Every structure is written in structure tokens, then in C-alpha cells.
């Protein structure tokens, strides 16, 4: 057996007010398979060392808490991943030390973020607040960006939203950082999302787009046609779901006859709610109602006219 020399890139994956759905989504990665992520190199010469992950790691109790302290104390650059929001009203979910001291998730996240190579906010809750931060936000959940800003920490943060985040988006972002370094402004949109995954409107690439253009709309579940009348948020949602699809490329929400919920957008689920309510045409970028026919029509970028 030959010994490979790999650069170890420690990763700490914290869970706040989430549902573990993004962790489970990560396990769904088809290429690379998750066993390979754990054991082998993710990009040539570099192994992502999953030091702390509440769903996967062997350690419990103070042993787990010590991993966090050790990672922080090491000189080795590490990546900090947050799943779920940071609950400011209920912070004591960081664990208990060997000395019996309770740890705040706010402090843990803040301290680890200070020394991290970068923060990756995975999923709607970590990236933008998501469901726990929906009104009235009982737990006081904050997104990674909000907490970093409040604490005056300038560590770069990449938002990989979604409910859950797609495994390709999570691992693709890590691969990008390992191969090319931190993303620049040109790589991210106004909401800190990688343009590689969140650069195009779902509506522009939707297989039911022809139905929309033809004015053929489904009026109840299971019916053919564009799902716009059933509340589809595809016309205001930027992601590559239509082409990438989910679970090894097998299907995706609109493919299953479900309106898009807009889960990658900031403000999900409050903005655009109710989820089944038709969005108003004024909210639709690049879509207008033709005054003569009364039908909705697509307006190419640069050609928009006042409604």
C-alpha cells in the first residue's frame, strides 16, 4: 500500500435552527459519492477532512466540543459551514465542555468564523433565514451574513441557499474554492450566491414554458400546463433546477407537477407567500401583460417597457 500525501482541508459543519435536510441532501451527492468525499481526495491532492458534523461524526459530548476548540487553535486553514440559522433567543445549542460549561452557538459560530478561510451558508435558513426566521421568528434566527455583519467579522461568506441546498451546489462551491480560491464579486450575485448555480431564471428554462407562452395553465394538481396559476414562483426564482434536476438528475419539483416554492430566494417563505397564491404580474421580472390581448408575454432583457 502506498501512502498518499494529501493536503487536509478541515471542515467544520455547524447546525443551528435547521432540520438536517441539507446534511441529508449532501449525503445524496451522486458525483462524487459521499463515501469518496469522506475517504478520498475531492480535488487532486486535497482531502476535505470532515472534522465536525453532528450527523456523521463519532464524537459526542465534550469530545465533540473539543474538536471545535482544537480546529480553532490549529494553524491549518479550515472551512466553516453553517446549516440552519443562528437562534439568538435560544443560543445554548453549542454543547457542554468537559468542565460542564454550556456553550453558545452564537459564540461558537462567531469565534470559528473569525479564523475560517471562508464561511459557506448552506440552505435557506443559514443563507437568508428561511422558515425559522419566518414571521414571527420565535427563535430569533439570523442568517450567517447577518451575524457576521453584526459581529463585525469580514470573513468571506458564500450563500448556497435552497430548501434543501442541492448537493452539487454545496460540493461544487467547495470544489471551486479548493481549485481556484475564494470567489470574487464577479462569481457571486447580489445575494452572495454563486452565479454558476443561481444565474438563470427558472422560468426561462422551464419545460412548461411553452405552455405559459401559449396561455395553457393548470387549474388543479395533476393537470397539464404551466403551474403559474397554482402559485409557481419559477418566474421570480434564480436557480439551475430545470437543467440540473434533483437526486442524481431523476426529477425536480415542476417535473412532479408541483409549483416552484422559490426556496432559493431571500425572503422564502414570507415573500411571495402564500406559496399557492398566484404571484402578481408586477412582481415578474421580464414578464408583462400585453395590453391588447391581455395575455402575459416575455420581454427580453433590455426591451422591458413600462406596464
Amino acid at each position, binding site marked *: *500500500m*502506498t*501512502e498518499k500525501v494529501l493536503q*487536509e482541508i478541515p471542515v467544520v459543519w455547524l447546525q443551528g435552527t*435547521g*432540520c*438536517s*435536510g*441539507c446534511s*441529508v441532501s449532501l*449525503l*445524496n*451527492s451522486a458525483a462524487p459519492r*459521499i*463515501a469518496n468525499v469522506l*475517504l478520498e481526495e475531492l480535488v487532486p491532492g486535497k482531502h476535505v477532512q*470532515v*472534522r465536525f458534523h*453532528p*450527523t*456523521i*461524526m*463519532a464524537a*459526542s*459530548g465534550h*469530545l465533540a466540543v473539543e474538536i471545535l476548540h482544537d480546529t480553532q487553535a490549529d494553524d491549518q486553514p479550515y472551512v466553516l459551514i453553517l446549516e440552519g440559522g443562528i*437562534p*439568538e*433567543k*435560544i443560543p*445554548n*445549542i453549542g*454543547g457542554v465542555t468537559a468542565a460542564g460549561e*454550556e456553550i*453558545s452557538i452564537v459564540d461558537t459560530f462567531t469565534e470559528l468564523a473569525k479564523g475560517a478561510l471562508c464561511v459557506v451558508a448552506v440552505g435557506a435558513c443559514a443563507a437568508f433565514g428561511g*422558515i*425559522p426566521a*419566518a414571521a*414571527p421568528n*420565535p*427563535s430569533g*434566527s439570523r442568517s450567517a451574513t447577518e451575524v457576521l455583519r453584526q459581529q463585525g467579522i469580514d470573513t468571506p461568506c458564500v450563500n448556497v441557499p435552497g*430548501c*434543501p441546498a442541492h448537493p452539487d451546489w454545496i460540493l461544487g462551491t467547495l470544489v471551486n474554492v479548493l481549485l481556484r480560491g475564494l470567489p470574487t464579486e464577479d462569481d457571486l450575485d447580489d445575494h452572495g450566491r454563486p452565479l454558476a448555480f443561481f444565474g438563470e431564471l427558472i422560468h426561462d428554462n422551464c419545460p412548461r414554458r411553452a405552455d405559459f407562452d401559449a396561455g395553457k395553465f393548470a387549474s*388543479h*394538481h*395533476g393537470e397539464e400546463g404551466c403551474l403559474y396559476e397554482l402559485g409557481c414562483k419559477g418566474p421570480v426564482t434564480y436557480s439551475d433546477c430545470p437543467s440540473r434536476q*434533483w*437526486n*442524481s438528475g*431523476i426529477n*425536480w*419539483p415542476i417535473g*412532479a*407537477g*408541483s409549483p416552484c*416554492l422559490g426556496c432559493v430566494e431571500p425572503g422564502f*417563505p414570507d415573500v411571495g407567500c*402564500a406559496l*399557492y397564491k398566484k404571484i402578481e404580474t408586477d412582481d415578474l421580472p421580464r414578464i408583462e401583460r400585453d395590453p391588447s390581448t391581455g395575455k402575459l408575454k416575455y420581454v427580453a432583457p433590455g426591451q422591458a417597457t413600462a406596464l
Partner: protein
Amino acid sequence: MGQIVIDPVARIEGHLKIEVTVDAGEVKDARVSGPMYRGFEQILVGRHPLDAQRLTTRVCGVCPAVHSVCSSLALDQAIGVADQIPDNGRIIRNLLLGANYLQSHILHFYILAALDYVDPAAVDVNSDDPAMQRLGEFLQRGELAPFTPRYEGDLRLDKKTNTAAVSHYLRALDMRRLTHEMLAVFGGKMPHEVACVPGGVCEVPTDDKVGAFISRLQDVRHFVDDCYIPDVVGVASTYSDYCEIGKGCGRYLSYGIFDMDVAETDLLKRPRYLPSGTLDGQLAEVDATAITEDLKYSFFEDEATHRHPSEGQTRPASEKEGAYSWAKAPRINGESYEVGPLARWLVAYHTGDDKVKSAVDGLLSALGAEPAALQSTIGRHAARALETKLIADAMADWALQLEPGAPVCAEYDLPEEGTGTGMVGGPRGALLHHIDIADGLIARYQLIVPTTWNVSPRDDEDQPGPIEQALIGTAVRDEDNPFELVRIARSFDPCLACAVHIVNAKDNEIGRYRIA
């Protein structure tokens, strides 16, 4: 008297804390609590009724399908279409739920529980198994995260059994992914499938989807037969002392799983693939009217204590004297009940369900054990494995009953007023969603989730919850490596994200860190 505090208990779903008092090597007192709270019930009030189904699906990333189904069952009733769900809708709901069971149970045994029993660092790297050779290269590099650090001193499988189990751990990662692909075939995506909706489903079945589902199911079935069942038997044989500890409260509750017909609108009277019932020495029908939630030791205002969920309230009181958990304490006629695969299987076994009886008797004879051994830490793993096989073996027939072209969803107009209660078993046990609609919006939404039953704190009569009872009386051999406590707690497969009421154990500490 010594105190052991384990926080976080990793490899469960969500955040769990165990505190026990140990005297002369035995647990004298135990408190389990979860320090995380999101407040779904508060968030849902005032929203569009149909949003309840979309949002509560996201209560849990491990078992979203059962929340989706249960919320839909509640909405079916509130809308008045509970007996009008088309067969395609009923079957696809069962396929979504069934595939989620396979996912959750395989995830639990291999990814969550196995590292308490197997040792990835002690495999035979010279075996013919290429996966073990690659693992050998990983071990050679010397950085063993996330498999270390860990509790040490009680990993006992012989090298051959251990090597096979570790190899199956790696294979289980692929099998779990396949179960989610099965779900995505009919559910759009997973986690958080989107196909189950009030009235039925929105996915339209086709023969090619049936084929895509069944072909993956076949791989999973082989894995269950060739790996999962033998590994559970291997662990049960080596750690046979765990057939004698972690019994718990000894009372069991099941709502039943998988609707075989929807003509009956009383969900507990519906024909289901596994039956509903309670077992407290004797088998009885579930008396849903006798379910209450106690609040004496929970961080909620006392005035709503001991109420049925249809009258329940969720008013946080983080400074409440004496409280130590944000879990409410659900009870039936004042008694605690365990829920989950073991509860379902004991209820079905005592109901005289043939398929369950023959599976249980077969396993007991392979282990040379008596039925009482099931009421234990290992018994929970065994019931979960048998349930995985039962469901995997049944689903191909269900999928073949789908009729392309036939309706998938009942048509309806959403009422301004309505009420409904969904009750169905999830991978972790009995789940209840209750909705009241008023003026076209959600007026009340209450959930009693499986883990709330199991992780419940003491009730108004000071009786501990099932996991607390399972821990009390346990001998702890090494307080620095309390294997017994985490093995017992994990055997319940706690899901703290589901136990939505739960917050922190020590209210004075909450105040200290509060920012907002």
C-alpha cells in the same frame, strides 16, 4: 453521586442533551432535553391553510414525507375530501412514505448508530474487498475524522464481522441515496418532496416511473437481505447484554401505517398495512380523545397543561420555575408511551398480524431469544430492520397498482372554516397534526411528533418520559466513556428537529446569552 452530561449527543437528528446522576455505577436519575426551538406552530398561525403542508414538510429533513402525508391527512379532513383521495394519490403517498422509511431506517442503523458498535479503524485492510483497501489508504494517512475522537473501550465485534459491517456502512451510504432517488421519482425531489398535497398528490404516474422506482427498490431489497438483517443479528449476538437494558416505560403506541383504503374517514379505523393500537400489558384501541400534553416541566405557560392537542397552546415561558425542557409531555390517560418501530411491531404482533408474527418469530429463533428480549436497546434495532424488510418487500406490488391516466388528486374549493386531525406512523413513530381553519386562514396548528413522546420530560405527576425511564437503572461501566447511555438513547432514533417544542434545559442560561 456523580453527574454525567452529554451535549451534544451527536448522530441523532437535531440537538439532544442527556444529564444523568450516577451512584455506585448505576443511573439514579436522568433528564433528557433538546436545546433547539424553531416554533413552527407559532409561525403557521395566520398563514394560508395549504402552506401548512409545505412548511411542516420541512419540520424534519430526515423524515419529511411523513410530515407531508400527515399534514395532508389533516387538510383532507378540514377540506372535506378525506374519503375522496383517488387510488393513485393514496398509493403514491404510500410509496413516498415507504421509501422514506427505507431511507430513515438505513440511515439510522448505519450512519447514526453503527459507530457505537463497529470500529472503522480495526478492519482487515488486506481483505479482498476493494472498499476496505481504500479505507486502508485513508487509515494510513492517519487523520481519522470523522470516525475519531469517540468513546473507547467497548467495541467488541470480531475482525471478520466488523470488517463486513464497516464495508456495509460504506455501501449503506449508496443505498440510502437510492431510496431518495425512489422518492424523487414520484416526489420531485428529496429531502422535502413536493408531490404529496391535500387531496392526493400532484405527480402523475407513468409506467416508466414505476420501472424507475422498482429497479432501485430491488437493489435496496438485496442490501436489506444481504447486509442490514445479518449485521443487526451480528450486533445483537455480540452485544447480547443490550437485549436486557434500556427497556423504557413498557407501554407502546401505534397509529398504524400505510392506508389500504380511504372510505373510512376515522384514520385510526382505516385499514392500514400495520395496525393501530396501544399495548400496556394488554392490547387496546387508541383512544385519541385521551391524549393530553402536560407542561409542568416544560417551558410553556402552565394554564394550557393537560389539554388535548385540539385545545393546545404554545406560549413560551422561558423563565418558568422548575421547567427543564421545551418538549411538552404527551400522555394517554396520564401514562407515558413509547413510539417507533418497536412499538408498531409489538402492537402488530399482539394483534396477531401474520406477516409480523412470522418475521419476529424467525428473528427470535435465529437469536435464540425470548419475546421479552425485544423490549430493549437491541430490540429497537431489530424491529427497525424487520420493518425495513417488510416495507421493501411490499412496495413493488403497490407501485404496480398505479393506473397511468387515472386521477391523482381530488378537486376541491378551500373552505373558510374547517378542522382536521392527521394521525399516521412515521419512521420514528406516531405523528399527529391538527389544524383549525378560520376566516380562510390557519387559526391553530398543533403537532405531536414521535420524538416528543419518547424524549418527553416528566409530566404533571412527576413521571419521567420513556427515554428517561430507559436510562434510569442502567449500570455505567466507565463514566468517561458512557457507551451505555448513548446506545440506549440512540436506539430510540431521536429526532429533535421534529420535537418542535423543544428548547433549552437551563432557563437562567438562556437569559445570559440572550441578544435579541
